[in-house]
């Protein structure tokens, strides 16, 4: 069933799956609780009414936190009221989060109390912000309103019909110049991306959502696609407990990034002396059958390894700018060297080796960044920045990357320039190049030897490591630098005096 708005997805699921569990989560060790499809729709509509009551309908509403029921209610209540949701990475440093809230013209900030540090400073930093809503507070106070209190007051239905081509979500993604860009996605972009392909996944499939919820891949494929199929979406409470939760929730399927698949492979191989069927039962449970992989490149050897245990890996490819899926593998036609077939709502071509895509999932542009938008979109075609081509039967093959971004194994995009600029501010760093090396982010630094002399620094690598350690203290986990190389000579430069990257 193809839907063109997020409201259509939710209404369809509530009608069809009603009192069936939609969202399941842990309340304490080994104890779970669930919310039904009817409840999810009702609570979302109450949140829409909350926004109306506050006079904030149609405005930009930022939400940050780990995946949770209140997060999802906020998201659906926002987009289905004609407002625009701005999901923010819960691990961002406070100043950075405030900068995004301000740049995205946010008027309401819904936050998990784990980010009360942001709540404490955000009003001062963001003059356009009017309301703060805490997901946990039982009663509102001077600092913030209570999500649950507001919801209770606004009980009742809300039947706004959003237009397919109206903006519904701004998602921030790393820009190649170091400044993150707000990808503007419409209802159609997101709803059609999630529902245009029938992957023959059974209704009521039990899935575990382990990826960060501010990522398009998680929001589209775990949540929107999951809901369109009446899935029971279980929420992982911590990355520490993925293996345990896989068994606790008795999963059928999971979306993962390659980094996680590699660790799970180790768990399977650890017990490889036992028959594969028993190993699979021990690690994933008898009812488990499929892993969807996305966000970064997966070594095809893992597809064979998991097949040995009766587990299918479906690999996909996409980017936030395309809401996000561009191509995916389907279980009945797997070609290991390809990243799957184009979605039916997407066409692609190769221009000078670069893959360009067009279709109903391609973004409107970057929020308030006309130059970057013009660079990325040409006559309706999105330049992916990836080198590749489309072969027979619309299978997509990737051959390299044109743009300068580090894609880590957990699917995070990191701009080397952003890190280089930050570290380059340090007096001891004269020139710096950041890149990925053997799965970790590495910085190669040419120190300022005049400064070394002046300050009589003896242990140059030690001092540079301190610079890196200081940076790592506040950097989100995926932007931490784990390898340092010290140069004795300057970097080779291009004619325009930029450091040669390759």
């Amino acid at each position, binding site marked *: 069933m193809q839907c063109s708005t997020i409201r259509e997805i939710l209404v369809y699921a509530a009608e069809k799956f009603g009192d069936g569990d939609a969202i399941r989560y842990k309340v304490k060790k080994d104890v779970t609780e669930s919310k039904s499809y009817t409840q999810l729709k009702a609570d979302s509509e109450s949140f829409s009414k909350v926004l109306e009551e506050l006079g904030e309908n149609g405005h930009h509403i930022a939400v940050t936190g780990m995946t949770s029921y209140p997060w999802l209610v906020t998201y659906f209540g926002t987009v289905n009221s004609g407002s625009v949701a701005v999901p923010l990475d819960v691990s961002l440093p406070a100043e950075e989060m405030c900068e995004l809230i301000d740049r995205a013209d946010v008027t309401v900030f819904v936050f998990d109390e784990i980010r009360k540090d942001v709540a404490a400073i955000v009003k001062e930093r963001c003059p356009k912000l009017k309301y703060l809503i805490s997901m946990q507070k039982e009663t509102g106070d001077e600092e913030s309103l209570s999500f649950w209190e507001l919801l209770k007051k606004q009980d009742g239905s809300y039947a706004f019909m959003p237009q397919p081509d109206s903006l519904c979500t701004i998602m921030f993604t790393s820009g190649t110049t170091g400044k993150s860009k707000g990808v503007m996605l419409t209802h159609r972009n997101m709803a059609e991306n999630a529902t245009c392909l029938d992957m023959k996944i059974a209704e009521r499939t039990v899935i575990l959502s382990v990826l960060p919820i501010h990522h398009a891949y998680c929001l589209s494929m775990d949540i929107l696609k999951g809901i369109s199929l009446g899935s029971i979406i279980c929420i992982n409470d*911590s990355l520490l407990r993925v293996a345990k939760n896989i068994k606790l929730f008795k999963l059928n399927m999971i979306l993962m990034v390659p980094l996680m698949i590699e660790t799970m492979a180790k768990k399977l191989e650890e017990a490889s002396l036992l028959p594969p069927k028993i190993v699979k039962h021990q690690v994933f449970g008898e009812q488990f059958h499929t892993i969807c992989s996305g966000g970064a490149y997966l070594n095809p050897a893992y597809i064979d390894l998991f097949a040995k245990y009766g587990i299918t890996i479906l690999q996909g490819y996409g980017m936030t700018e395309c809401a996000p899926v561009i191509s995916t593998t389907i279980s009945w036609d797997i070609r290991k060297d390809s990243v799957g077939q184009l979605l039916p709502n997407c066409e692609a071509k190769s221009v000078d080796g670069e893959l360009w895509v067009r279709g109903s999932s391609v973004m409107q542009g970057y929020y308030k960044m006309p130059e970057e938008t013009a660079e990325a979109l040409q006559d309706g075609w999105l330049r992916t920045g990836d080198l590749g081509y489309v072969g027979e039967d619309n299978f997509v093959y990737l051959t390299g990357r044109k743009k300068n971004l580090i894609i880590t194994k*957990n699917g995070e995009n990191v701009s080397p320039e952003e890190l280089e600029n930050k570290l380059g501010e340090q007096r001891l760093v004269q020139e710096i190049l950041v890149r990925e090396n053997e799965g970790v982010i590495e910085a190669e630094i040419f120190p300022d030897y005049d400064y070394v002399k002046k300050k009589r620094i003896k242990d140059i690598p030690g001092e540079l490591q301190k610079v890196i350690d200081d940076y790592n203290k506040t950097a989100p986990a995926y932007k931490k630098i784990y390898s340092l190389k010290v140069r004795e000579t300057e970097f080779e430069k291009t004619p325009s005096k930029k450091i040669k990257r390759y």
Partner: protein
Amino acid sequence: MFDRLVGIIGNYVDVEPENIHPESRFMEDLGFTSFDFMSMLGELEDELDVEIDEQEAVNIRTVQEAADYLEKLASEE
């Protein structure tokens, strides 16, 4: 606790026990990925019957720091 960690580290990375030292850093020296590290702590959480705080866990860098943290949690139980 250190010996216990040395035992479990081998399930995630291919490093000989004699090459694991208290000051060895999980990611930089032992070749752990961030998710390997989290999964290992999750395993230990069960074994030691403790509850690990993910926010605190991300600040652990060396084997000794992990041993100290787990020791502290176990003694609080």
